[in-house]
């Protein structure tokens, strides 16, 4: 008996019990749909993280002030020992590092006419824009000279510009940070949310000298954004920077470090790792539903074999072999699981579209996930269809014909 016939018989048998077939498929539909939606959310998050990392540059090295010392753990930003001199020493003595920018940050009230806002205020040097590959959409950035002279100039993130100026052009306008007037020289390109969900455009960038002396009132810096000559150089530079800073800060035991050095790939790996674990967790919950769906199919197929004992007897009497009967029931089970799989894929796609649309989470449809879901659905049909099909084929035609 050829395959098309078997398929037709299977479809007819399923159509005979539409509600039952639909309910049986539901388990697979939910399972496959959940897997597809989960994977697309996971992939979306991963994509976002990758994007963030690329925007920072894969050569990036991050040197942050902070202590992890037992008894006095202050975490990031808690120590006052990292300085611009440290950065200059790194640039001088670690040739793998091509450029670096110091960053001090704080928050302060920013006022323009009757509008005000409290953005993150960062003090840095012009290298910052280059290392972070962040250009301006209007105006320009401040100069080395303005850093040296601690000039009152600033570049606005688009969120800040929008909140303070609305549709007005901010370039050349004067705003106040606290009591101090600042001239706006540029507006940054929009960057959107970071992988961690914060608005990267909600910031104001000024020369670090100005922020240190006039706003924050400190002499140290919070971190250094550095860029190595290559991606590999970034990894190689880490121990060299650590050694140099320990020497400068007179630290003998690495446990007493008052700084953290990491590369972009470290950060990326950690973020991706977290993402993967989450995905795996969600994926395995979804797979449980697939297994439950498979058991549902097996259950219904067993019922179906019992109900159709006479039919099986008739088919055998008119010439169906055991293999024909086995194939028929197997194809029925696989048809059910595959149909469930296809509907599941569609609902998964619709679901992830809805999530992207209404929750604003990024989703990324993965062709691999669709292929895997299809294969898994077929596999479940076969796996859970084998036993009922075997049972059907084992029936004795004489008994089956006599079955009431």
């Amino acid at each position, binding site marked *: 008996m050829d395959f098309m016939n078997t398929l037709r018989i299977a479809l007819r048998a399923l159509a005979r019990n539409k509600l039952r077939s639909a309910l049986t498929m539901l388990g697979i539909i939910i399972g496959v749909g959940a897997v597809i939606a989960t994977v697309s959310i996971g992939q979306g998050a991963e994509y976002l993280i990758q994007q963030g990392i690329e925007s920072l540059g894969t050569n990036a090295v991050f040197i942050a002030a902070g202590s992890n010392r037992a008894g006095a753990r202050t975490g990031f930003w808690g120590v006052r020992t990292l300085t611009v001199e440290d950065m200059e020493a790194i640039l001088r003595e670690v040739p793998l590092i091509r450029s670096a920018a110091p960053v001090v940050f704080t928050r302060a009230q920013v006022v323009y006419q009757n509008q005000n806002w409290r953005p993150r205020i960062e003090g840095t040097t012009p290298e910052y824009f280059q290392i972070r590959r962040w250009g301006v959409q209007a105006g320009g950035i401040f100069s080395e000279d303005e850093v040296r002279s601690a000039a009152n100039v600033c570049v606005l993130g688009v969120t800040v510009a929008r909140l303070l100026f609305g549709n007005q052009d901010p370039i050349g306008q004067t705003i106040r940070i606290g009591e101090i007037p600042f001239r706006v020289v540029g507006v940054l390109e929009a960057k959107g949310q970071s992988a961690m969900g914060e608005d990267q455009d909600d910031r104001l960038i000024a020369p670090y000298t100005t922020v240190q002396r006039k706003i924050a009132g400190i002499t140290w810096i919070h971190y250094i954004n550095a860029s190595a000559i290559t991606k590999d150089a970034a990894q190689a530079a880490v121990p060299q920077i650590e050694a140099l800073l320990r020497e400068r800060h007179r630290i003998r035991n690495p446990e007493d470090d008052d700084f953290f050095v990491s590369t972009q790939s470290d950060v990326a790996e950690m973020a991706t790792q977290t993402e993967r674990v989450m995905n795996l967790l969600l994926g395995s919950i979804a797979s449980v539903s697939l297994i439950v769906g498979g058991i549902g199919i097996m259950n219904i197929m067993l019922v179906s074999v019992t109900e159709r004992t006479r039919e099986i007897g*008739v088919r055998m009497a008119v010439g169906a072999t055991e293999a024909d009967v086995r194939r028929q029931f197997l194809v029925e089970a696989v048809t059910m699981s595959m149909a469930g799989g296809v509907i599941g894929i569609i609902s998964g796609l619709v679901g992830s579209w809805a999530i992207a649309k209404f929750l604003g989470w990024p989703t990324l449809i993965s062709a691999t996930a669709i292929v895997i879901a299809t294969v898994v659905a077929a596999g479940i049909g076969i796996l859970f269809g084998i036993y009922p099909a075997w049972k059907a084929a084992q029936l004795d035609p004489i008994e089956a014909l006599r079955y009431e």
Partner: protein
Amino acid sequence: MSIEAKSEHVTNTASGGNAELIRLENVHKIYQLGEVQVHALRGVSLQIGRGEFVAVMGASGSGKSTLMNILGCLDRPTRGSYFLDGTDVSQLSKVELARIRNQKIGFVFQQFNLLPRTSALENVELPTIYAGVSPAERHSRALAALERVGLADRAHHFPSQLSGGQQQRVAIARALVNRPSILLADEPTGNLDSRTSVEIMDILQHLNEEEGLTVVLVTHEHDIAQYAKRVLEFRDGRIRKDYQVSDRWVAREVLPTLPVLDELDAVELGAQDATAPGPVSPSEVW
């Protein structure tokens, strides 16, 4: 023992058949039911020629159903041989037996055994599917078979829309569709009223007389056996009597003498079948 010897003698002189189609040689069938051995057939030898019309009679437990199962290749003898159309089928594998059933044997059952929610045409097509016949030919063969039983106009009806007699005619068409050598009918009239029974016998007689089809029929009713050419009586797993029917009835001649069921009754009968596809016990019908 003497009876058995006599019956064998009679068997060999069976008339009405020219070439031998079926030969059983000392066939035994023993069922193992838990601890108990049931000796269903105790050495049956028998020949049936092409074109014969044989009625197998006997009380329940006499072994006639076992004989039918073996003749129909649904079961294999425990001992002895069974030659069908010259081949010894008693030692064939299950797959080979399925092939024989498909090609050489047409079954008609007491319960009709049509697939529910499947049109008459598709029911008749069923054996051709397993024969690997192309869809176009399947269709034309099934239609031709339905025509032979006078139901071409009901091809697209479902069994639930047909009366009992019509359902049995569809079943006969299904049995004929692969052009078998032999038609095995197991109590084909057991679920039908007397007039419809005779109508079915008319079809079987017609197929036997006009088309030379070999028919073996199991029944426990003498009235039905009277339409056959030859009768085998079974008791305790052995053939007790094997004789030619002397005063054979012709269904075509009997039919005009029977009262016609009025329309209403026929509809009722059909409706009963539709709601309860299970068997209607003979006592209810008679």
